[in-house]
């Protein structure tokens, strides 16, 4: 058989050429295999990553911050999603008509929109935090270069009424003040993320790996009662307006559980609109401002004397002639009283009577009492800037200081400390920690400070103080037996006592089984009246009355019209 008749093929090709071709083909395929091995084996990770980056996306899943609720579940603070509108000015070439339409929807001036879009920047916010439905309308305009960003906004429906208690959140939704800060760990959520595959239309088609689910913050249920808070706030506001006072505070405590039912300060602010805030508005005075408690402190000294068995409620004490010299200093009663019983010392609020009882005690006993009552150190409830007040170590006391401290001068306290310390009278001589959160546990057993007997005796003395002949008949509440003590302290300014006062009243009711403790402090009343019995006691009375009725506490007194309309408060000491 002949291979071919072609002369070209007649010649036998040299063998090397066949081998060369074979070799080249072999080398080529080897190179391919090698390359494939390199890509599939050695370089695999990198390439998979690159590939996934083309269609995989990591999506942030924001967590919502927990709500703050009052003790009945009413919303006090809630986060709702809002949108912020931003633009890339270079892309956002709007016709004047479009700009006008946009401005109307956003509720801003059309010129402002034009001005912002003319800015030489890559990014500009047109309006932050608008309602989602408005954002949908804006998106419906399909304007170029206008984008949206999801954000959360915190709303406080109660507004300024509970501003200091709740505080507010700052950037990144983190707590900055008040409860928002104190309970931030509980309220704040942890945002999650998920990796997904998106198709070319941007729709999610598959989850790639397990989702890191966002953890929403937990709701916080406070001890606060929104109704009592509103009552306390409005009454305090009224009193501050009537007496042209500079500031004030009020606290309502549950005497049985130590829960803080209401706490209001003035001046206040609207937490929903914090564009212009001053430090004075922002301060949570009940926690951060200390003042000399004045006469509201006397019951502690007297109770200690009773508890130690140094006096009985009817032990006579000579307070005439209304002056008492200790070392080089002299203390005085503004209105000399003569011989008073221990109970009358409280009722008439005699400085000298109290000081005489104090001077019979060792310094250390008095200091230990004040320390046990929580004075001189912050309560550590988690509020920012909580003050501890001033309680000097007893080793450096002098007798005159012991005397003045016994009636609340030369010592400084915060309103919340004072309210808490009155637990020893409202309860049967013990002290429980305060609670901002609602506690469903049975009434706590506290740290005993006085005996039950002393607490009972003090209750009846403090009840005398609000009856005709006492310093605060205006603190009475129809249908309920109340007890309490007034305080009027001269303010120190630059080391000297100025002609400015702090009027206060701390009390509790019903006396037969105390439920509520209310402390009122009014700073610099300047409309003529400044005694605690005239300025602070009426606030106590109206808040206590409404609060007891709101809580459905059964009356423990006959309902007789109060004889306080013409009752003149006994002149008290300062």
């Amino acid at each position, binding site marked *: 058989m002949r291979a071919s008749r072609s002369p070209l093929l007649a010649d036998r090709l040299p063998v090397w050429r066949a081998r060369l071709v074979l070799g080249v083909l072999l080398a080529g395929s080897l190179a391919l295999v090698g390359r494939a091995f390199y890509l599939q084996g050695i370089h695999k990770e990198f390439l998979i990553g690159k590939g996934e980056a083309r269609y995989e996306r990591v999506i942030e899943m924001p967590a919502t911050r927990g709500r703050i609720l009052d003790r009945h579940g009413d919303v006090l603070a809630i986060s*709702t*999603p809002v949108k912020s509108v931003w633009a890339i000015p270079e892309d956002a070439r709007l016709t004047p008509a479009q700009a006008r339409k946009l401005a109307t929807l956003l509720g801003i001036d059309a010129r402002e929109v034009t001005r912002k879009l003319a800015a030489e920047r890559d990014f500009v916010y047109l309006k932050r935090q608008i309602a989602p439905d408005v954002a949908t309308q804006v998106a419906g305009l399909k304007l170029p270069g206008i984008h949206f960003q999801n954000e959360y906004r915190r709303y406080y429906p*109660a507004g300024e009424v509970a501003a200091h208690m709740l505080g507010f959140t700052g950037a990144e939704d983190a707590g900055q003040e008040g409860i928002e800060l104190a309970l931030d760990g509980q309220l704040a959520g942890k945002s999650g993320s998920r990796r997904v595959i998106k198709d070319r239309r941007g729709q*999610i088609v598959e989850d790639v790996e397990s989702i890191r689910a966002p953890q929403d913050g937990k709701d916080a249920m406070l001890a606060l009662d929104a109704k009592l808070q*509103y009552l306390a706030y409005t009454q305090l506001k009224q009193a501050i307006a009537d007496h042209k006072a500079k500031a004030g505070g009020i606290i309502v405590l549950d005497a049985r559980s130590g829960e803080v039912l209401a706490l209001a300060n003035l001046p206040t602010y609207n937490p929903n609109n914090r564009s212009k805030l001053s430090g004075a508005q922002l301060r949570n005075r009940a926690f951060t401002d200390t003042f000399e408690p004045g006469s509201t402190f006397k019951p502690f000294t007297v109770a200690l004397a009773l508890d130690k068995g140094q006096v009985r409620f009817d032990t006579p004490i000579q307070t005439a002639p209304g002056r008492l010299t200790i070392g080089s200093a002299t203390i005085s009663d503004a209105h000399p009283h003569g011989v008073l019983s221990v109970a009358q010392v409280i009722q008439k609020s005699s400085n000298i009577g109290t000081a005489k009882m104090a001077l019979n005690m060792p310094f250390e006993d008095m200091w230990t009492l004040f320390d046990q009552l929580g004075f001189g150190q912050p309560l550590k409830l988690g509020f920012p800037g909580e003050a501890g007040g001033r309680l000097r170590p007893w080793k450096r006391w002098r007798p005159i200081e012991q005397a003045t401290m016994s009636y609340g001068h030369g010592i400084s306290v915060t309103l919340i400390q004072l309210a808490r310390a009155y637990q020893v009278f409202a309860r049967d001589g013990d002290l429980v920690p305060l609670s901002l959160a609602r506690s469903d546990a049975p009434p706590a057993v506290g740290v005993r400070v006085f005996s039950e007997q002393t607490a009972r005796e003090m209750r009846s003395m403090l009840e005398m103080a609000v009856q005709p002949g006492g310093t605060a008949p205006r603190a009475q509440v129809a*249908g309920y037996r109340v007890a309490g003590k007034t305080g009027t302290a001269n303010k120190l300014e630059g080391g000297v006592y100025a002609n400015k006062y702090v009027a206060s009243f701390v009390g509790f009711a019903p006396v037969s089984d105390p439920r509520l403790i209310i402390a009122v402090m009014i700073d610099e009343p300047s409309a003529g009246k400044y005694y605690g019995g005239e300025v602070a006691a009426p606030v106590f009375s109206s808040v206590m009355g409404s609060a007891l009725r709101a809580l459905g506490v059964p*009356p423990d007194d006959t309902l007789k019209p109060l004889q306080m309309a013409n009752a003149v408060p006994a002149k008290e000491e300062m």
Partner: protein
Amino acid sequence: MARLNLILLIAVLLSALAVVSSNHRARKLVTEFEREQERMRALEVEWGQLQLEQSTWAAHARVEQIARDKLGMHPPRTNQIISLQP
């Protein structure tokens, strides 16, 4: 032998088609799930706004004002209270 191979080939083809279709179904379900989640978020937004609205309508200041001004209510005076013993 050839028959077994043919059966296996058909089996492989069928299972490959099944994979494709179940993948497709899975993606459709994911899309649906996404849509439902979107709806859930929208409902949450609405719920939040309704809560806000409720607390605005039920604000104590508003209730008090309406009770006083519109309905002419006032707190009972002392002589209007009768206390009942249980």
